[in-house]
């Protein structure tokens, strides 16, 4: 399965989509929307918020399609839009205040709803999703961008508007937390077959 950054669409479809062709726009939606939602869902961590950020990202894709210069795959361009939208949310004072007041309410068990339908009875995936959801939003975004999306520390720092050491420390913290999660513990039930 190609990652979002690798997804591309034919130039002819892009050209038709720019003129407002309905079928071409639908084809682009079908090609990139699952990857966009997968990325946004992991970075946002909250279902309702992910829906909003997904809508914003897709909206911006169509509004700014004329600006896309096709120097990289369309998916890479859309990924950058999605990451920027998500990080803007993570940095906003409103979000920080909401986290302080709502605490753990944001970490809903969304993965249990989709995993059986999309990947079959994959308990390992479920466990990893739970571990990921246990991280703070910033640490989760950093670890996902670094380990899965292939961002460098410099790129993460630039995206967050912070220093490289910020990215490294967030990643180290996330790794430490995830290692703890996967260490065998008697007081936590896991879906992973032992």
């Amino acid at each position, binding site marked *: 399965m190609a990652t*979002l950054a690798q997804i591309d669409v034919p130039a002819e479809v892009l050209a038709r989509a720019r003129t407002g062709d309905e079928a071409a726009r639908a084809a682009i939606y079908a090609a990139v929307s699952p990857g966009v939602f997968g990325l946004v869902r992991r970075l946002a961590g909250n279902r309702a918020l992910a829906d909003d950020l997904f809508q914003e990202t897709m909206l911006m894709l169509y509004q700014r399609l004329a600006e896309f210069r096709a120097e990289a795959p369309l998916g890479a361009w859309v990924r950058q839009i999605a990451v920027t939208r998500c990080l803007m949310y993570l940095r906003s004072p409103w979000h920080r205040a909401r986290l302080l007041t709502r605490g753990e309410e944001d970490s809903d068990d969304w993965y249990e709803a989709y995993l059986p339908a999309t990947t079959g009875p994959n308990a390992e995936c479920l466990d990893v999703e739970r571990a990921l959801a246990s991280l703070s939003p910033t640490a989760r975004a950093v670890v996902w961008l670094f380990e899965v999306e292939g961002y460098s520390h410099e790129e993460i720092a630039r995206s967050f508007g912070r220093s490289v050491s910020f990215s490294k420390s967030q990643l180290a913290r996330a790794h430490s937390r995830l290692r703890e999660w996967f260490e065998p513990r008697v007081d936590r039930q896991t879906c992973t077959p032992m």
Partner: protein
Amino acid sequence: MHTNVDQQTAALAARLRQLPAELPPPYGWLEFKRRSSPAIRPARAAMSWRHAAVAAGVVVVIAAVAVRSRINVSAPQTASVRLSIGDPRSLGRSVGEGTLDATAPLPPAAAANPLADAALYANEAGGRAARSLAIEHWLAALPQEPAVVRVGTRSAVTGLEDQLAQMDDLLASMRVDGAGLERLGQLQQERARLMGSLAQVRYAEVVDARSSP
């Protein structure tokens, strides 16, 4: 020990990469289109020359009115108001100059006369409101925000826009409550300062978007 931690970290990374990269989106194309139909029509050109000319004309007229109204009331208050469609730094400077003027002590003759005092404040407030309006027109003439933005710059823009919205709410409620001209003038001054800052950040964002590959 380190090797053990490194191995665990590598195993973690492998587990993360095994997660499905794609998830079913919350709705399909038709629902997306229904939710955003007015917004996803083919984008118009960001800014036509006709729009730019109209915006420039509006700015010049407003600036002329502001300068003339300042000259008519009082000679010491005739600070230069320089508004330029091309360079927001001049907008920032003129706002800054206005700030300095307003915080300076009033001339004794004007301070002693309540009517002259009120006229002066009204005129000052009018000048600041005109400057705010001029900057708003300048901002409206800028291209829309780029698709890929820097988070820091965009956060600064949204922060300033939030503060401006709060300021507008405050101004509206103060006017309804019949607040004094002096207080309204201070709020207008603060609003003009925020508009100046917003213009400078937006200008930097546009320049950055044009220069980036």
